[in-house]
């Protein structure tokens, strides 16, 4: 293979691994969106200068080891209970910046009650929700967000509505709650979407200090391994199948006035 001559000394670094993301090899499968989501979340923490006052909560799911990578104080919650743990942290430490990072099974199945009530109370925390329409960690079982007809290890003939019900659009549901301050759905499958998702995380963290309610950022992501696809293929599948059902965009945005008299 031909060698390219590099010109690093003549140039400025415009994009690099954030220092808030530890220099450790991540355990995620090749091409997994968890890695991108981790990086942009830590970039956001770092850019806002919040590393010293942030406490994160990791879920049970593939991202159970988020605390091996995110260089902030972290707690590992029981499956589904991350938002309750975050509530405990934030209520006793209102000056800290608190976030949870949770998968669809964690947040929208076993932890539905905690999720809903945390947002309903308007806890001043950021909830980052990674929707990959599957249980990644346990080997590809059906998730609450699994699409109709989507095959998983527990829906071998595809998800059937009469048996398993419809995929749960929990983000739309949460956006209805007065306790929610900012609710948005993003994705990390293209450079443009990654930029937007990071912006959403920046806002979600920044607006926490206004003490006006919960910020909720869904990130539609992939699971190449359990979807049985190559990473590139999985992002295409995401675009063609997930995004029509889970359209990207803001569902609840604070008004100018809400942002001004903070």
């Amino acid at each position: 293979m031909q060698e390219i001559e590099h010109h690093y000394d003549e140039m400025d670094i415009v994009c690099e691994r954030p220092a808030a993301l530890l220099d450790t090899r991540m355990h995620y499968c090749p091409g997994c969106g968890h890695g991108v989501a981790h990086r942009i979340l830590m970039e956001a923490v770092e850019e806002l200068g919040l590393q010293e006052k942030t406490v994160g909560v990791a879920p049970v799911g593939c991202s159970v080891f988020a605390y091996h990578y995110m260089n902030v104080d972290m707690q590992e919650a029981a499956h589904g209970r991350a938002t309750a743990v975050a509530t405990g942290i934030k209520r006793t430490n209102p000056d800290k910046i608190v976030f949870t990072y949770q998968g669809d099974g964690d947040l929208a199945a076993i932890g539905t009650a905690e999720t809903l009530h945390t947002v309903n109370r308007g806890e001043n925390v950021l909830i980052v929700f990674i929707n990959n329409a599957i249980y990644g960690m346990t080997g590809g079982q059906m998730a609450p967000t699994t699409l109709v007809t989507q095959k998983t290890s527990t829906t071998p003939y595809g998800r059937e509505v009469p048996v398993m019900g419809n995929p749960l659009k929990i983000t739309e549901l949460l956006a209805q709650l007065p306790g929610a301050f900012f609710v948005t759905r993003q994705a990390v499958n293209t450079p443009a979407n990654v930029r937007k998702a990071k912006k959403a995380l920046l806002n979600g963290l920044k607006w926490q200090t206004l003490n006006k309610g919960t910020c909720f950022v869904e990130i539609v992501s992939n699971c190449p391994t359990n979807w049985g696809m190559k990473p590139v293929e999985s992002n295409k599948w995401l675009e063609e199948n997930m995004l029509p059902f889970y359209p990207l965009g803001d569902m609840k945005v604070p008004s100018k006035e809400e942002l001004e008299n903070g």
Partner: protein
Amino acid sequence: MAKIRGDISIDVEKCKGCELCVVACPQDAVALSSEINKQGYHYAVLIEDVCTGCTSCSLVCPDAVITVYREDRKSKKKTPVAEVRNVTGDIKIQVGAEEGN
């Protein structure tokens, strides 16, 4: 208008050869190497000196292993070369492009 010149460096030992950067690069400047790293993955490499430093590859990289560089021709970056302290306040003397903030 001439293209801005850019460059990337890849921490190949942490690369997992997922190819997401390859499809993200608008210049088709990245490809997977025929060599494998210690983890056994065909890692990504820059194959042509056409990088514009657009950061697309780096944005989609799940393993955060791509550093992107860009030439600072019109750099707004100012490097302080001296600092003078006096009673009216600190003055920074700078070289480089016009004053900015």
